[in-house]
């Protein structure tokens, strides 16, 4: 995958040493702890990991949508040459929805129940484009058509409760893409949909990504979704990036034991197995993460050094980064 090198020359978004902490009663939760990542133009980057490992916080940090008690305490997010963390709230608002937009997990509650679907797409257009009257309506209908809502001329007048879950998520996509963003952040976009609808929405996303030439940051815990969608994958564990690589190497030759464990826990139709493998234990508390490598208590290969020293993220093959003492 030579083209990832080109991407590294000119990334669309560059996250450097990002730290997002939550100041809870139990202590400081280091949800995103010193994360660095690049997303190239037109690239689909998958961020994968178990629940509670900081994926969503990472996604929300990019748009600066972290709410108190959460706070971005350090790092840089360079987008189009500007550090998003240094922009004023006003300037940030011009980026949200226009240059970077987001699709959330739960399509049932992400649409406002008192407005028609059409007016909610229109809202996004009003915020960032100077279209009026008929042109605006035409744009709304065009977006609905692009996300393959049947008879959009009729359906735009409907309310969200008259749409199915999959259709609502497609409406969310229409809203997110209505201003032709450079980057689409999708936080578990298909998790709440049933499997056949998932596949539909994913292939729609893929098609739209090609059409709009947007980059996508896809946050998911589902390796199957990653395989279908991503060009590159970042594996996150307990607030840290543990492995980054192109999608094929990740699946064929994962280096980090956590990635390996994640891949083993995918059910496969081809194999008859008694019991689906799972990773023992749970994601550690991010208030008091284990010393050394954060994965060592659950790692089957853990050595003495893993308990003491935190492994750095190093490039062991071109474009393949791993943070593990086993691979140096």
């Amino acid at each position, binding site marked *: 995958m030579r083209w990832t090198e080109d991407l590294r020359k000119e990334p669309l978004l560059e996250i450097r040493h990002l730290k997002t902490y939550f100041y809870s009663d139990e202590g400081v939760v280091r949800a995103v702890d010193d994360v660095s990542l690049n997303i190239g133009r037109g690239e689909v980057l998958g961020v994968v990991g178990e629940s509670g490992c900081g994926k969503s916080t990472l996604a929300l940090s990019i748009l600066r949508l972290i709410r108190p008690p959460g706070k971005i305490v350090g790092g840089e997010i360079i987008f189009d040459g500007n550090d998003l963390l240094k922009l004023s709230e006003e300037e940030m608002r011009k980026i*949200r929805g226009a240059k970077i937009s987001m699709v959330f997990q739960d399509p049932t509650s992400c649409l406002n129940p008192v407005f028609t679907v059409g007016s909610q797409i229109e809202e996004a257009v009003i915020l960032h484009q100077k279209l009026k009257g008929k042109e605006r309506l035409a744009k709304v209908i065009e977006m609905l058509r692009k996300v393959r809502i049947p008879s959009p001329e009729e359906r735009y007048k409907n309310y969200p409760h008259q749409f199915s879950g999959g259709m609502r998520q497609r409406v969310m996509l229409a809203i997110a893409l209505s201003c032709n963003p450079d980057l689409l952040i999708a936080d578990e976009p298909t998790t709440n949909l049933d499997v056949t609808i998932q596949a539909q929405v994913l292939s729609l996303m893929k098609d739209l990504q090609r059409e709009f030439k947007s980059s996508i940051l896809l946050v998911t815990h589902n390796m199957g979704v990653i395989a279908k969608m991503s060009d590159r994958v970042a594996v996150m564990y307990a607030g840290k990036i543990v492995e980054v690589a192109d999608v094929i190497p990740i699946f064929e030759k994962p280096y980090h034991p956590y990635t390996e464990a994640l891949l083993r826990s995918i059910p496969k139709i081809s194999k008859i197995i008694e019991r689906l493998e799972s990773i023992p234990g749970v994601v550690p508390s991010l208030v008091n993460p284990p010393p050394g490598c954060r994965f060592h208590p659950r790692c089957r290969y853990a050595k003495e050094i893993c308990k003491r020293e935190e492994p750095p993220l190093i490039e062991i093959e071109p474009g393949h980064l791993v943070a593990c003492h086993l691979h140096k």
Partner: protein
Amino acid sequence: MTINDMKTMSTSESADLKKRLEIERRRASLWNLAWSRFKKQKLSIFGAVIALCVIILAIFAPILSPYDPKEMHWGEEMVPPCRRFLLGTDELGRDVLSQIIWGARTSLVVGLGAVGILVLIGVIIGSISGYFGGWVDELLMRITDIMLTIPTLFLIILMASIFKSRGIGIIILIIGVTGWPQLARITRSMFLSIKELPYVDAARAMGASNLRIIYRHIFPNAIAPIIVSATFRLASAVLTEAALSFLGLSDPTIVSWGKMLSVGHTTMRYAWWIATFPGIAIFLTVIGFNLLGDGLRDALEAPSGR
């Protein structure tokens, strides 16, 4: 079956289909949904009818009232209800029915005016408080608490005696600026829960400003309890106005139910009709608006996401 029969059947069937589509289309609007739920409650319909009657009386008072309410009919003082004076006359010979009709106008103007003011103040304070939270919320809610601890009628009497003029505008203003705390609290609690919902996050991710999120994304979802509460406040404003004019703190030149009560209660023993009919009018109006509020509360529940 003849071909004609089949023809008529198919057209009737397609008419049936059209009808069903029509119903489906109508059902789409949230207001229609609310109306279909509202219709089912008999008591709320009763309340709505009373409210409508009061509104009609208020608007068409000059046409509907048989006499000028201030006209004194010499030699016809304290006439009991009869054909000439359907509800009798008071001790100065003024027609009770005409006064009641014009009194509806006073009640409604005071009620709507005061509710307009108190909803405006309450919604602004409540939404800022609920949306921003923190010290702003703390400060605004303490002010609200203080307002709630002061007995309203006392405050109103105090203010009424401070103001030199007793114009109806002053009465409206007084009831308005003392009545907002409940509205502020309801609005705040709605904002507190709605601002946590994913569609508010989605709106922010879309690039909407705080102000836009407040009025465009949260407020429309909070409007049902605000309307309901406003309806109840309207009833209580009517009552407060009656109390004020009963106490003689209102505009002396305006016909109002409260003043009729105060005029009539001294002669209650031998001319029951002078105080009884305005009393019934106040009672029915307050009950009517309260029932209407109850009905709206049940009807305006927004459909859930699912």
